[in-house]
């Protein structure tokens, strides 16, 4: 099946900034997240795809058409920006109608669009009078009115409070799935990326760091930068000592842990381990010594304990620091306190080995 959207080797120099060989593809109905810190080139990538910058090299294919040389108005790409970019001098109906092809006046020809998004009662309102959710729907309706082959979202939620953000995110995902139009969503918030996306691209300084599904990126980051960016709580320097029948032996400080080897090139020598906190189990030291121990069981001392509502963060020390999560009732049941000895278990496939 051919891809609905394909970007090949897109390169661009914009003043001091450079986009380096951006590559990705999208299928119909797929949501791609471009994730990265500020200044990594996320917006520039979107703007280049939309046609506002001429790339030095590369191709952009949308719905089978090579649009690389086309002006923005001929690319059939819908664009939604922060705060939704509604035209303040036009009513809702006029905003939506402006994208209609072949229509001159401001009457909405497809009233179905307004009712599809449930905003026909807002037809004559001014954008300034709308709530964020209403604005989003108007922006979607407007973009949809021009029958786009691709949707692009440039951090539309960054100026909104957490609750609204969550709500709108869910709504957006529902709409996009129903419309089955491919979408590229840009954000610097990894929670948002996790909630919304199918595929994620991590950008840094104009280059792609890693590309993969949400699960891959979050559980198997390709390097420390990505790991930090996606919120991996434990990144530990280590040394790969040996490979033992499908397990890598790694030395972390004075401890030995075993990790599932990553796909692709096996790191040798100096490496970094990425361990997500939620995979680490913390339990009281078993009374009976000599009980069966699974791989990667470590004895640690509780260094810090922070209880925040239902969740507690535990920092334990066993030659190196580890961060883990516990539910508050668990903490109580265990009678956990700073200075206690605990047993920490990490499943080998929760330890991801990275070259750097």
């Amino acid at each position, binding site marked *: 099946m051919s891809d609905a959207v394909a970007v090949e080797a897109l390169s661009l120099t914009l003043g001091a900034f450079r986009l380096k060989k951006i590559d990705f593809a999208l299928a119909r109905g797929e949501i791609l997240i471009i994730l990265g810190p500020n200044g990594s080139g996320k917006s520039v990538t979107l703007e280049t795809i939309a046609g506002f910058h001429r790339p030095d090299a590369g191709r952009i294919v949308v719905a089978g058409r090579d649009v690389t040389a086309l002006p923005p108005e001929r690319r059939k790409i819908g664009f939604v920006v922060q705060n939704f970019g509604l035209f303040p001098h036009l009513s809702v109906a006029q905003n939506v109608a402006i*994208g209609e092809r072949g229509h001159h006046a401001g009457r909405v020809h497809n009233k179905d669009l307004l009712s599809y998004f449930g905003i026909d009662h807002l037809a004559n309102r001014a954008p300034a009078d709308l709530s964020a959710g209403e604005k989003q729907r108007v922006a979607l309706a407007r973009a949809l009115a021009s029958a786009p082959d691709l949707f692009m979202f440039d951090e539309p939620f960054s100026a909104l409070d957490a609750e609204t953000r969550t709500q709108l995110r869910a709504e957006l995902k529902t709409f996009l799935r129903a419309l089955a139009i491919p979408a590229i969503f840009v954000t610097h918030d990894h929670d948002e990326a996790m909630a919304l996306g199918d595929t994620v691209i991590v950008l840094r300084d104009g280059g792609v760091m890693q590309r993969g599904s949400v699960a891959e990126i979050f559980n198997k980051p390709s390097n420390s930068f990505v790991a930090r960016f996606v919120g991996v709580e434990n990144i530990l320097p280590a040394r790969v000592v040996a490979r033992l029948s499908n397990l890598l032996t790694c030395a972390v400080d004075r401890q030995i842990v075993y990790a599932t080897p990553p796909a692709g090139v096996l790191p040798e020598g100096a490496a970094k381990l990425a361990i997500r906190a939620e995979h680490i189990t913390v339990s009281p030291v078993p009374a009976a010594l000599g009980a069966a121990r699974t791989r990667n069981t470590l004895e640690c001392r509780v260094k810090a304990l922070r209880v925040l509502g239902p969740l507690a963060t535990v920092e334990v020390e066993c030659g190196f620091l580890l961060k883990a999560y516990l539910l508050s009732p668990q903490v109580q049941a265990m009678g956990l306190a700073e200075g206690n000895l605990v047993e920490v278990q990490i499943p080998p496939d929760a330890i991801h080995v990275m070259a750097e």
Partner: protein
Amino acid sequence: MTISVETTRGGYAERSRWTSAAPSRPGALYLLCWFCGSVLLAFLVIPLVALATHQSGQDLVEAAGMADVRSAIALSIEGAFLSAALAALAGVPLAYVLARTAFPGKGLIAALIDLPLAVPHTVAGIALFLVFGRQGVLGEPLQALVGLKFWGTVAGIVVAMLFVSAPYTVNAARIGFEAVDPRLEKIARTLGLGPWRTFLRITLPLAWRSIMTGVTLTFARSISEFGAVVILVYYPMTAPVMIYELFLRFGLEQAAAAAVLLLIVSLALFVLLRTLAQRGAPATGGR
């Protein structure tokens, strides 16, 4: 009291309605502003009132009855109108370029646009005379090719008015365009509007009020211009020239009456222009 705050900088219009705990006890800052403002207002208004009340209604009617006073005022309005129209036609595109593009020498060009405001009016008139006179670098070919003369014609009046007043349109339009978020223009393009339709349907309406303010200033400045106009065109007389001559020949009374007539007509036109500015402005653009 409800204050509507509308910001168009950096984002697009987001009106937040602030219902201020209304100055039941106006703060010191507010009072100070009003005080300083009143002083300036008085400084501007009192001489105008003194001028207006200097003559009786009878004098005004007499002045209005003089055919050459009427034709001088009409000529001033005609010239100012043409000057404002030309300033808009050429100045608005220039303002758009200055607002949207960066190029080497942009700062210099922006400064050059302000320069006519600093040139003494007589000097401006002489400069224009050198260029548009019968032997001028532009005047000679224009007269030979299209028969366009500037000495003693409406064209000369317009040229002098435009020179001293065009900067107002360009600067105001530029500020208006700079306040329109370029992202809105980009979105319009992605919705299928080409560059022209984007400009006409999005950029221009959002910058309209600023542009009209600039055009009104240009119009006002044009009507009152004397020094530059009088070098190229003494006859036919514009209102300021006529008022000057009345003053020299007959004295203060006649001149003041004609001046007040001019002011009344100008005031009416400004109100009209302001209304036009409001009408054309987006309905939701706020006040």
